């Protein structure tokens, strides 16, 4: 209810009249047409799940974090998703630090409704122990620069963050399978969140003269506008949420027309977001491949010192897997391998489902990205799977989730890739196997010596295009 009018920047009458008159002839002050969006840039930060969006002058950051909590009593099998907004005072002189003001609360709730009520993020997959432990996903939105149309920019940032966020994998252990072990990212690949569809918010501003409607109002246009409507749609043409909180009254026909325009815009923006997220994931997967050539030595050192907890276990697993991967290549399918590895890994007490996941994941690590404990996987990596390396890095979490859970939007392209990859995989693997047998000793020594490592990296890149 507080309106800090003293801090508000007031527009002069001349500016107001100028904007209104220009709109009558269909011109906007920044040269856009009425239904054009400003330039959209999405960048990702160092942490997973952090995204930065520039929509013209508006600058918003999103951070996604996860925590294990107790679920609500009436929804024992669902994880939770909560949105918190912070309107930083540096964004706008009318933002006060401390308690979120009305517009901050409204923004948070509009985005929350768009994501939660439309079931964009799958909350059932966030459940670990029904009724006791679930993942609570928290999205923090920070507004850094208010150039107008905060809702759209914050929505895009939240979606980008949620798509790139990975939560640590956890497995059940303990005496009766009630203890939850959270695996650190070095040990187990973290998992993506399951996002069914992307609800995109499109904001319309209404002006009293000539009943003009524009999309994506700037800060100046927002000061002049009579009313605003935010429509959240996904690319399938479903309306996920609408928020028109009072303001200028408009005809029903105008509303339907706006929704149709919003459907078109939502499709375009969701394509852009997916493209950015995919390129980010590709880059990240490539980075990961290179990174894993080094932690092996780190691991060796650590195991000597005895810092790593699972080092002894790793050593055991090394022996098992070295025998395993030979058989695996002959098998040509991952499920067979999973069964074998499961038999051997009887030491760990796991439920069947998570066990399949884990072994799948271990084999996945083995195929797509060498894990720290496998000395032979380096050879595999250097020679094989270069053509599908990028997609493999992303494909693995999807395949694993596909086995155990539902669908995922990102995997729509991947299932086609997966069967293709299985076949070409096997032949390079055979070559890789022979190569690595020959180079087995050499690769270990190479790891210690810096210069050889670099030459090995060159062979990486040389065999890249192949």
């Amino acid at each position: 209810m507080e309106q800090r009018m003293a801090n508000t920047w007031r527009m002069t009458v001349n500016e107001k009249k100028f904007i209104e008159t220009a709109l009558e002839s269909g011109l906007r002050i920044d040269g856009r047409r009425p239904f054009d969006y400003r330039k959209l840039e999405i960048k990702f930060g160092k942490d997973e799940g952090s995204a930065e969006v520039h929509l013209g002058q508006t600058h918003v950051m999103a951070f996604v974090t996860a925590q294990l909590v107790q679920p609500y009593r009436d929804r024992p099998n669902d994880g939770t998703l909560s949105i918190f907004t912070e309107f930083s005072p540096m964004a706008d002189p009318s933002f006060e630090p401390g308690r979120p003001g009305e517009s901050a609360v409204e923004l948070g709730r509009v985005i929350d409704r768009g994501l939660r009520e439309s079931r964009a993020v799958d909350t059932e997959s966030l459940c670990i122990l029904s009724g006791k432990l679930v993942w609570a996903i928290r999205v923090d939105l920070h507004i850094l620069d208010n150039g107008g149309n905060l809702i759209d920019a914050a929505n895009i940032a939240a979606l980008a963050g949620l798509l790139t966020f990975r939560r640590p994998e956890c497995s059940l252990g303990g005496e009766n399978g009630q203890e939850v072990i959270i695996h650190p990212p070095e040990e187990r690949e973290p998992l993506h969140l399951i996002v069914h569809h992307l609800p995109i918010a499109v904001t319309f501003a209404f002006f009293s003269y000539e009943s003009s409607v524009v999309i994506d109002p700037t800060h100046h246009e927002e000061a002049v506008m009579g009313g605003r409507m935010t429509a959240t749609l996904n690319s399938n043409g479903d309306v996920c949420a609408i928020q028109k909180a009072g303001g200028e009254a408009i005809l029903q026909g105008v509303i339907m027309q706006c929704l149709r325009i919003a459907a078109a815009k939502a499709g375009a923006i969701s394509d852009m977001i997916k493209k950015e997220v995919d390129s980010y994931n590709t880059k990240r997967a490539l980075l990961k491949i290179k990174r894993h050539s080094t932690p092996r030595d780190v691991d060796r050192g650590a195991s000597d010192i005895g810092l790593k907890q699972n080092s002894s276990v790793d050593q055991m697993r090394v022996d098992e897997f070295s025998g395993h991967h030979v058989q695996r290549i002959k098998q040509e399918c991952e499920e067979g391998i999973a069964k074998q590895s499961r038999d051997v890994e009887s030491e760990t007490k796991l439920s069947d489902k998570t066990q399949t996941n884990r072994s799948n994941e271990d084999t996945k690590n083995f195929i797509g990205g060498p894990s720290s404990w496998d000395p032979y996987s380096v050879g595999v990596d250097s020679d094989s799977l270069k053509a599908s390396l990028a997609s493999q890095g992303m494909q693995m979490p999807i395949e694993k989730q596909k086995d155990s859970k539902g669908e995922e939007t990102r995997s729509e392209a991947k299932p086609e890739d997966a069967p293709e990859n299985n076949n070409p995989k096997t032949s390079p693997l055979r070559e890789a196997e022979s190569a690595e047998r020959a180079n087995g000793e050499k690769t270990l020594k190479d790891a210690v010596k810096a210069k050889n490592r670099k030459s090995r990296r060159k062979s990486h890149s040389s065999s890249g295009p192949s």
Partner: protein
Amino acid sequence: MVMRQIRAEIGVVAKADGSAMFEMGNTKVVAAVYGPREVQNRSQQLNANALVRCEYTMANFSTGDRMRKLKGDRRSTEISLVIRQTMEECILTNLMPRSQIDIFVQVVQADGGTLSACINAATLALANAGIPMRDIVTSCSAGYLNSTPLLDLNYIEDSAGGADVTLGIMPKLDKVTLLQMDAKLSLDTFENVMQLAIEGCKAVADYIREVSAFHFLFFFSNDKLSIVDHVDEHCLLSTYDGYYWRTQSNCSIVEEHSFIAWLATLCRCGVLYGSKLGSGPHLVAVLLFWILKIVTWRKLVNFND
């Protein structure tokens, strides 16, 4: 396709300038309006318009389980903002610069559709306070469950996970002020649901007008009252004791009783100021007024069926 039973009462809070109680089925809401009065916080004073403030609260006992500390939470803040902006649109704020109008809405019983009931109650309270308005704002909610559009959802239907569309319109101008929707709907389904909600709003509007006329004609001892009226496209008339009064030739509270309503307005003014004219005209006005009351009472009371 049918709404829940609606019931409205005007003048429930004696101290307030205007107040109303609105019931939609089991949802019961009380609205109180204070204003126009002097701005309490000078820094928030607007020099060209009236400042409209709104506060939405739910009583602890309004839902099934007793709730704790709900006043400052995010949902209440958002709903307060929504109601404020909706009512601000229909109040002629430029007629009352440097003043403040407070709308307080309290949910006494919550059974779905609280936002709609709040807006309807606020409209009635503002009319009761005699604040000039462009048009009344009526609101109704509609939803979509099991491939059926439903009108006026209650709590169980609302929490079933289907869509929930709350719509607020200005019936005479036929324009949409408030539109809130959650859950997923395809575009065509949404259009159907919105159409249904608009019809519901129009039904509420008819009822509100009847209640205002009813109240006016029966509780004429209440000095401040206003007639919801459509004079020309954007201006609404209100008779407002002590400040100003006006009669216009086309005054219509309830469409079919237009002539009677006009006559009633005339008589009402005559009754109030007739004593200055002399006892003769005054008596005539009072007699005529009572006759009109009896005649229209029979027609109005049938609505509640």
